């Protein structure tokens, strides 16, 4: 198991203004699998991902990355966890503007003081297709290229899990498809584990499994999804929600 959430609650604020973003989430993320987390806006997708990745603390429950219990780690422990076991791809602003593409890719390794595995690095760079852009700075790259650099950076250190929060949210459909295809290949060919938050059914269909969140709870799950099945499930959930009202 690459990551696991047991009865995770996340409550923001207190008293009147209290919001329970996650209410007893149980989820497991297998190794070498591409999992998408879907759900309407405000359903708690980002919160779940942040908790899983050790970026945010949980109110109740436990999180494990590999064998490491994330809940209970201090800042130093969390930093080490993020550095050695987790990779990130954010929706935007993934790269340091002062560094070249290659330097950005190598950044987590340099921070950790680890030597890059030359062969793996070549593979990653070729997979994302950025060999001729390695010396460029982020400002000289398109949005899609920037996200691919971010993917390569996340992959370069071969983390236990890569968490991606709407990685294609800012891209047009073609650039988005490139990035998603690349993520899927890294799972299929290199046994990378990826957890991706998205609200786009097409993006979700690239994953091998989709879990659906609503109001901070997991309400459904699809294996080997297609855009159509994802859309259907979403509609169904919407219908349930409306009926519930």
């Amino acid at each position: 198991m690459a990551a696991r959430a047991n009865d995770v609650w996340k409550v923001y604020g207190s008293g009147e203004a209290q919001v329970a973003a996650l209410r007893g989430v149980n989820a497991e993320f297998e190794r070498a699998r591409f999992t998408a987390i879907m759900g309407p806006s405000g359903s708690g997708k980002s919160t779940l991902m942040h908790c899983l990745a050790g970026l945010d603390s949980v109110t109740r429950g436990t999180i494990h990355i590999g064998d490491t219990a994330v809940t209970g780690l201090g800042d130093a422990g969390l930093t080490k966890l993020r550095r050695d076991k987790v990779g990130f791809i954010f929706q935007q602003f993934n790269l340091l503007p002062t560094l070249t593409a290659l330097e950005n890719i190598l950044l987590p390794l340099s921070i950790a003081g680890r030597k890059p595995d030359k062969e793996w690095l070549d593979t990653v760079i070729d997979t994302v297709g950025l060999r001729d852009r390695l010396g460029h700075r982020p400002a000289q790259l398109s949005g899609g290229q920037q996200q691919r650099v971010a993917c390569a950076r996340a992959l370069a250190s071969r983390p236990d899990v890569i968490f991606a929060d709407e990685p294609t949210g800012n891209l047009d459909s073609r650039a988005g498809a490139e990035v998603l295809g690349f993520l899927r290949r890294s799972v299929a060919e290199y046994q990378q584990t990826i957890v991706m938050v998205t609200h786009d059914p097409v993006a979700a269909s690239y994953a091998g499994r989709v879990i659906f969140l609503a109001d901070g709870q997991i309400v459904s799950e699809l294996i080997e999804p297609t855009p159509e099945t994802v859309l259907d499930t979403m509609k169904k959930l919407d219908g349930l929600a409306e009926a519930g009202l």
Partner: protein
Amino acid sequence: MLRATLKSLLARKVRLVLSGLAVVLGVMFVSGAFVLTDTLGRSFDTVFSDAYAGTDVGVSAKPKIDVGEMEGMEVAGTFPASALEQVRGVSGVASATGLAAADGARVIGSNGKVLTSVGAPQFGSNWTGESGQVELREGRGPTADNEVAVNGAVAKAAKLAVGDRVGILTLQPKREFTVVGIFGYGGDRDSLGGAQEVTFTERAAQELMLGQPGVFSELSVKAADGVDPAKLRDDIAGTLGDGYVVKTGEQLSEDASAGLKEGLAFFNNILLGFAGVALFVGIFLILNTFSIIVAQRTRELALLRAIGAGRRQVIGSVLVEAVAIGLVASVLGLGAGIGVGALLAYVFGQTAGGLQLAGLGVPPAAVISSFAVGLVVTVIAAVLPAMRAARIPPVAAMQDVATPDRPLTKISVAGAVVSAIGGTLMAFGLSGTGGNTLLTILGGVLLCFIGVALLTPLISRPVVGLLGRLFSWSVPGKLGRLNSGRNPRRTAITAAALMVGIALVTGVTVILDSAKSSITALAEDTIQAELVISGAQTGPRPPSFDPAVLDQAAEVPGVAMVAGLYGDRAVVGGKQGWITATSSVPALREIYRATPTAGSIDSLGPNQLLVDSKTAKDRGLSVGDTVPVQLSRGDAQNYTLTGIYAESELFGGFVIPASAAANFAVPQPTQAYLKLAPGASVDQVMPRVETLLADSPEVSVADRADFIEQQAGQLDGLLTMIQILLALAIVIAVLGIVNTLALSVLERTRELGLLRAIGLRRGQTMRMITVEAVVISVFGALLGVAVGAGLGAAVVRALREDGITNLVLPWSEMGLFLGLAAVVGVVAAVLPAIRAARLNVLGAIAHE
């Protein structure tokens, strides 16, 4: 619009406080200077109105030579006792007292040294009874010539009681007296304004303080009841005729106080110098802060423009902010200035031997100048950023904030032009052809600074890159280096602020070290004496010693020649200048290796004088000419020029025989050079000369090397003082670095969040910020050292004619400054680094 401005102002108070702090400091020194001079001035007024309390009209004689405040001692004129009888005969005079008073009664304390006095006079006079404010505390007034009464300040400092014996130096060498009385002043004060006072019998005072029996230096007249002092003054003046100065007591006290206040101007100038440097550096800081604020507010300002605000309104909104900061800084600075003024006045009062301070005063000038300076400086600094803000197009509201880096061409050309003008102005000033040379030089230096500051962004690219490589061995170091190169303008202004202080310190060090080295080299080359008798001068009066020592020293086995030197100001041929008297012309000639260019310099008879070739040429003098000479005492006399010697850097001017020195302000030798016989040993001769000086505690004997070092070392104190002054500029520059870093951390919140998310440790984050700070500050120091060395070298080059022939670059100090700058960077980074490390990762990533 105004409300929007003020709201955003409050939202950014921390950074405004930081940048405003420089203005606060500058204003503090301005207002502090005014408060100090006002408070001390009024304290002096009280002292003198007390000192002249018993005097309705005062009579004195014009001095023979008018000596300026900072040039040396002035000797009061004297008049015969018959004047006293004349005044007593004037109708309306109740009583008249003759005073034989002068500065220079130096009491020898229990440690064998002369009592020190910081600026306050050491009066010696005749005892005139308990008049005015004077109150006997113990004993009686002196009745015999070997008796004295002393004031409380002297008694305390020398630990004297009635009946004790005490040695006193006057115009005469040391004499012993018995203390028969101790007196104080109204209000149980030990002293008026810190002055030390010794009173003798009238005859002793005339001989010891005025150098002539039967004369007075002052008359204190009391008017009969109902007589107007001003009328009495006119009557007395009419009776005495020309040559006398007659004033009312009120005038006298005002004049005396005004004289001292002139001396205070010196303090004022130091404080205003502080203020100038602080404010100059402060301008850089505020300029930077406003630039960053405008950059950060691009969207907000564009939005204002989009919804209809005009350019003027945008400029106005930035300037309103500047005015607000300026006002707050002025108020704070004024408050701090009052504190500093009060503190300095207190310290001054203590060191001046217990000057009773008048109540603290805040003159209107302090308030007005505080606000004027605070506002003007802040607004000037904000003008450029405000104009830039006005150029933001409304569409920027809809676009991404990323403003492209503007090219540096314009600013660099401007920098080159300004530097060139500054350099020319400096060269012009240094060559001495301009009218007001010092102002020209300062203006040139100022322009050079501004020019270099404008060029700094251009220089920063390669230099910061190179410097940064030093720290690039670790990832945080590399990130820090890249960050410091990211915004050349911002880095440049921050570094330039540091540059100013360090350049000034370096420049001054170059000049003083060069002067020191040149003087030392010259003295080692020129002075041919193995031993020198001299003392350290602390006030206007040079230390002196018993002339008998000269003859006794010549008798010491092993001593071949002794040249005693006396110095004073004199009017020679209608022009005031320095004059030297010597006990032995042949010895002097030998010791300075002087060579004659006309006439003979082998001997000097009475009323004969020598002069150096340069002065002779300037004045058109040749051997055989008759020159009238007026000394501090006595009447003018005609001298014959008998010899001209080749000018040298170390010795010059008019030389007359020692017999004439009796009419000098200090009629005793102030220096003596001893040349030893071949084969005589310094170690054997020195202790014997030392014993001769037992009764001359103001001087000591040193071998040649020590003497030269002492002379050159006089510059060290000056250097230290200037370095301390300029440390302030550096402190302000540190504030600038803190400010820039804090803003950078804020700006890069998301970046920091990303770095932390992918595993940058807290310690590494801090290191990254620290490297950025160190790179900026070392860059500033590097610039400062280079600019300072350049400026210093230029000045030294210009002073070559004046004998500063060696250019000494203080490498070790310059290295030290660089090292200090690195430390400064580390210190400046502490708070911003902690802030960056504490950043909440999630919050940072979501940061807008």
